[in-house]
């Protein structure tokens, strides 16, 4: 039971980090970024390339993954979202195509076989019979530090308040002097950074392979739909519901059914409460 609790907490923190970048884009830009999983893909491979192939320090690899994710977010905003402004269907289709394109690029450069990421921090600690890999513990703690920092940033800074303002009332933000285009670009950059860093943690939790962008995208969509579109707090709570659901399913039913109950939960929430459990248009 303790092992389930610990595994659930570790996984849920990571899921919250994965989902929050997706939530940011939807709240501020009103766009379902279906290429969001590609940030994780690129983040994971960037870390692999710099830290395992070139031998740079692991934390430099994580930082470089974040920088590449940030650049990818800005490029996506400038080259796809801005030109297609207002055409949400076109943006969503384009981002999905971009994810498939990036997967092909990864296969071309690194091959299609899966890779094992060496732990960011090697070693395992046993607590009351529960095995806790330091790498997973680090990923969970780092996720929480990032999430708390993000929450404080959104609540207490001018830029964070401007992001909330754009997400709640674009005209109100504009007449307050907020440049929605800049805020949107910043949000895409932030989302790319968070997604890429989450990708390093996710790949070290599972494995690195070209199709790894799909599972995190489904997790992000699930958390956002169940939690309610646009709520950081809702995202955190539901990330824990989804994380624990998966761990409990793996432990007590069958590991193969791990994601099935998450899907069922999405359907139930969509039918019963389409606005999500905590849905309201805020960050």
């Amino acid at each position, binding site marked *: 039971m303790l092992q389930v609790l610990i595994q659930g907490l570790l996984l849920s923190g990571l899921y919250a980090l994965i989902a929050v970048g997706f939530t940011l884009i939807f709240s501020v830009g009103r766009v379902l970024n279906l290429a969001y999983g590609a940030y994780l893909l690129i983040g994971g491979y960037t870390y692999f390339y710099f830290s395992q192939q070139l031998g740079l320090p692991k934390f430099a690899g994580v930082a470089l993954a974040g920088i590449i994710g940030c650049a990818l977010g800005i490029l996506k905003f400038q080259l796809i979202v801005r030109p297609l402004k207002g055409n949400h269907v076109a943006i969503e289709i384009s981002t999905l195509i971009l994810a498939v394109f990036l997967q092909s690029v990864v296969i071309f450069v690194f091959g299609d076989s899966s890779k094992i990421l060496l732990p960011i921090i090697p070693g395992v600690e046993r607590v009351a019979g529960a095995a806790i890999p330091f790498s997973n513990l680090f990923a969970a703690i780092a996720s929480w530090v990032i999430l708390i920092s993000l929450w404080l940033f959104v609540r207490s800074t*001018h830029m964070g*308040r*401007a992001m*909330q*303002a754009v997400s*709640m*009332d674009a*005209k*109100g*933000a*504009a*007449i*307050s*002097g*907020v*440049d929605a285009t800049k805020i949107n670009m910043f949000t895409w950059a932030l989302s790319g950074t968070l997604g890429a860093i989450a990708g390093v943690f996710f790949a070290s939790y599972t494995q690195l392979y070209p199709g790894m962008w799909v599972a995190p995208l489904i997790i992000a969509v699930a958390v956002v739909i169940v939690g309610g579109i646009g709520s950081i707090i809702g995202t955190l709570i539901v990330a824990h519901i989804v994380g624990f659901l998966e761990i409990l399913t793996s432990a007590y039913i069958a590991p193969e059914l791990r994601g099935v109950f998450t899907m069922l939960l999405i359907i139930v929430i969509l039918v019963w409460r389409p606005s999500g459990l905590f849905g*309201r*248009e*805020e960050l």
Partner: protein
Amino acid sequence: MALLEIENLSAFYGKAQALHDLTFNVEEGSIIAMVGANGAGKSTLLDSIMGLTQTKGDIRLDGTPITAAKPQDIVVKGVGYAPERFNLFPYMTVRDNLLVGAYTAREDIETNLDMIHKLFPRLEERENQETVSQSGGERQMVSLGRALMSSPRLLLVDEPTIGLAPKVCLEIADVLKRLRDEFSLTVLITEQNANFALSLAEQIMVLESGHLVASGTSDELSSDERLAAAYFGH
């Protein structure tokens, strides 16, 4: 001296023309009211000044053209806007709504907050309340406060009394007069309630179907039988 000059201003929503060649000035330190029925183009006029609609013609603030400038640049140049529907941030507190208004005037936050709390003591008492749970009158106060947080020289207020109780209307009128008299602000309001406009403004303009059909002091307009019957109820 004119703070705001409007010359041959037309505004469009796609192919539909909402304003037709409006020309008028707003003198510095005055309160000017634009009255008209629903759909006359009052909100469109204020949106146009703020750069929120597609326009033709010239808009100058203190002699500087602001036609087709971005809203954020117009705010920086000194125009504050309290729109009819408030456009507040519903799940943010009163204080955070006001702080968003200070996005372009961060160095003046304490001074402006102090001024707003003096004008609307209720906002200080309820600074941690989300605006979604506030009354219409309180939201109007937050909307005006948010506009004032940008340290404007010209304040645009769209239908400040719509849906508000008479007591709150008097409170708003008092605040607008104080902004002119104590803080040297220039105020341009739009109103359907012509008597409210008469009680407040030095000059009143009448807008009908996007056309400026009359302009003058309250005495001048009241003496026009057609306008008096149509707008001033006597």
